[in-house]
């Protein structure tokens, strides 16, 4: 080494060793980097002037310490800002040099589910459950309203029953009840609380008048054959069991013993959504405003020509904006509930010539139904089942404070206007209350606390669900039209549609009776009792 003055030589030696140390432990230890910086600073400031050497191991304890500290803090702040910018520019962060609209759906998805209600999310969950390869299926659920303010799911009374007359309905309901029984085995997510549906197991009680008692007996046989636990009660047994009922005009009653009751639909929706999102389902809040499809002409057996449309892109429009994203998709599922008819009309279903198959519109339309919350302090107690009277009035207990939910399906000719969700209290005064007070005398004195209205996805053809493919649109599956039973059948319908899409046929519950062809063949599958 050349003969430098002593101090600089010392610094030079020190410089080499410090450089090595600095490189090795850079940015792992703040103190070390401070020391390094201090050392560099010392070095830089010492080069122009041949200062008296300070002992290197004590160089960070200099006299001008405060100025040093401020400078170091600034430098640290600048390093931190630099590191943040670098991290943002790296892949994995959501910064991009172009302005992107937040919440856009992906450009491509395998299955697009139109409608984010309980049926849509159940289908998404089961599709992800059944995919055999991780990320083998990209599922997108498109929901118009993030607040769910008009969605039928959350406005429903939340009841589940097996007392139907069609075997398929009973099986759907029983499968759904089994799903709800084991809901934490299905829908538990790590680090989240277990699902609590607040299920009340009070059962349903149907009352039949003289002329419909034979229908109730036939239904009872069907239900027992299908495995539902139901009991028939004569009027005297009914009076003994529920003394608060007025049994005039009741010929027979049917009480559900197991797997029947009501629960919180919002909890089920959120549980399904949380689990599906954790499994990789994409969620988009936007409205489906149109489709891009390719058309082919097909000849049907009686010589007519129809347009068969295959959906290529689903146009999803962002909320409060004109911007839309065309999502390229293989399969589209219409689970839009009350708006399913609108979605079907976007594909020209029902807009063709009247005599042909494309002229038959999709028979699902929204129907408004009212639910009134009443308070009656002398009303029936904890054993109140979900009572459904022969006149159509229904009533169930809500909580423990003497509140009840009640309502009635209006006549066909008196359907309320569906342009809004305003409640008609006159309907309660004139139609619901007299019948309710007739059946339960304690309800002669009550007070209406509040009310709300919701839409049924009403199937005008036969008031039962429509599940399957449309002949004119070979890649759109329908899962709608449940006319008030969508919530209680949703887990099973989700499984059935997932099986239909992935396996090509039904495995657990056979819903071929709910296929769309019954609409074209004009063979309705009517249920004997509907609320």
């Amino acid at each position, binding site marked *: 080494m050349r003969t430098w003055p002593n101090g600089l030589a010392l610094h030079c030696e020190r410089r080499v060793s410090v450089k090595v140390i600095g490189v090795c432990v850079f940015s792992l230890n703040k103190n070390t980097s401070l020391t390094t910086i201090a050392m560099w600073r010392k070095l830089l400031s010492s080069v122009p002037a041949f200062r008296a050497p300070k002992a290197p191991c004590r160089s960070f304890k200099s006299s001008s310490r405060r100025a040093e500290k401020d400078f170091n803090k600034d430098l640290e702040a600048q390093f931190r800002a630099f590191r943040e910018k670098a991290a943002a520019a790296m892949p994995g962060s959501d910064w991009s040099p172009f302005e992107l609209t937040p919440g856009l759906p992906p450009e491509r998805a395998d299955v697009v589910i139109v409608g984010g209600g309980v049926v849509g999310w159940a289908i998404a969950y089961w599709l992800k459950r059944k995919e055999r390869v991780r990320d083998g299926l990209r599922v997108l659920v498109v929901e118009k309203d993030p607040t769910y303010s008009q969605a039928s799911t959350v406005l429903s009374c939340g009841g589940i029953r097996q007392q139907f007359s069609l075997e398929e309905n009973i099986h759907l309901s029983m499968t759904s009840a089994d799903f709800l029984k084991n809901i934490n085995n299905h829908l538990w997510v790590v680090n989240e609380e277990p699902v609590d549906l607040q299920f009340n197991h009070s059962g349903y009680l149907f009352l039949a008048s003289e002329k419909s008692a034979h229908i109730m007996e036939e239904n009872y046989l069907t239900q027992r054959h299908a495995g539902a636990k139901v009991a028939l009660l004569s009027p005297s047994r009914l009076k003994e069991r529920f003394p608060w009922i007025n049994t005039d005009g009741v010929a027979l009653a049917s009480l559900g013993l197991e797997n029947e009751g009501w629960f919180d639909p919002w909890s089920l929706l959120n549980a399904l959504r949380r689990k599906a999102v954790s499994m990789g389902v994409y969620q988009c809040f936007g409205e489906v405003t149109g489709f891009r499809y390719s058309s082919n002409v097909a000849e049907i057996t009686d010589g007519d020509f129809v347009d068969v449309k295959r959906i290529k892109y689903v146009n999803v429009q962002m909320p409060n904006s004109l911007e839309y994203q065309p999502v390229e998709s293989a399969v589209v599922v219409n689970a839009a509930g009350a708006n399913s008819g609108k979605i079907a009309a976007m594909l020209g279903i029902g807009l063709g010539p009247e005599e042909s198959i494309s002229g038959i519109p999709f028979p699902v339309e929204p129907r408004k139904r009212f639910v009134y919350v009443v308070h009656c302090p002398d*009303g029936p107690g904890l054993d109140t089942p979900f009572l459904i009277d022969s006149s159509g009035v229904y009533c169930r207990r809500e909580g423990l404070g003497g509140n009840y939910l009640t309502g009635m399906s209006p006549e066909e000719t008196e359907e309320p206007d569906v342009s809004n969700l305003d409640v008609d209290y006159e309907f309660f005064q004139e139609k619901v209350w007299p019948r309710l007070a007739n059946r339960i005398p304690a309800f002669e004195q009550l007070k209406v606390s509040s009310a709300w209205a919701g839409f049924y996805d009403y199937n005008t053809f036969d008031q039962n669900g429509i599940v399957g493919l449309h002949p004119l649109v070979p890649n759109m599956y329908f899962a709608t039209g449940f006319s008030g039973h969508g919530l209680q059948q949703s887990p099973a319908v989700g499984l059935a549609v997932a099986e239909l899409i992935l396996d090509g046929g039904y495995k657990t519950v056979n819903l071929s009776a709910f296929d769309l062809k019954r609409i074209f063949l004009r063979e309705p599958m009517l249920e004997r009792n509907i609320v």
Partner: protein
Amino acid sequence: MAASLLSHGMRRCSAHTCAAAVAVRRGLSSAAPPSVFIRLLLKLNRYFYDVEHIVGWNEWARTKLVRSKNTFFGYAQQRFGDNIGAAYYILTLRGSFRFAGQTEWFRPDSRGRFSYDFMSTPDAQIEEVDLSGTIINHNGLDNLVKQNKLQSLSLRGCPEVDDWFLARLHVFGESLVELDVSHCPCVTVGGLAALQNLRKLQRLDISGLSRLQSPGLVRILLEEMLPHCQVTGAEYEQGLIQPDTREPTEEDHEASANTGVRHL
């Protein structure tokens, strides 16, 4: 040596993971902050599929015992009859029972072993069952549904008994006289409402049900629902907001006696 060290490490790691996953499921709902290991595990669970699978396996393993204890003992029922099948099931779960017409109870010892004397009376139906502290759930009840002379059932402190279990008890509606569901953490009001099908019930114990927010009100409603039943385990003033200003009055057996209770 490296392999054995690795496997030893993995086993210890998996033991930690077992403990962690158990704590993940149950402990996170408690107020105590999770330990560093659990937090690390959850963070890794977000990033690595392997860790996600391990946590999933542990969840499966944890519930495996419950599932295997609650299967339907079909062979026993088919070969020896319903009564012996049910008796065998109860003893396997470490419960105890008494046949109708006999006074002695059949119990397993502290290590779960039991004698097979019950097999000598295949026609004797079971009258009293004590399943306290067992892991029976609604699936396991399949083994007992044929016992239509069952008079007394004790489910004290069963962690898997929930509302769906209580809803299935309607099969004993003609015979059950005494039911004890105290200290079952999963039972709520919705399940107690299902007890309306047990018309012969005379004694019901609902003490220590943590998910009831107003036990006094629930007691009143149960007494109204089952007029011949004596409900124990909840005082009338439990659940009232201001117990010091209000005298604990004798509430009458109406649902209207709830003016003092504001939260439910």
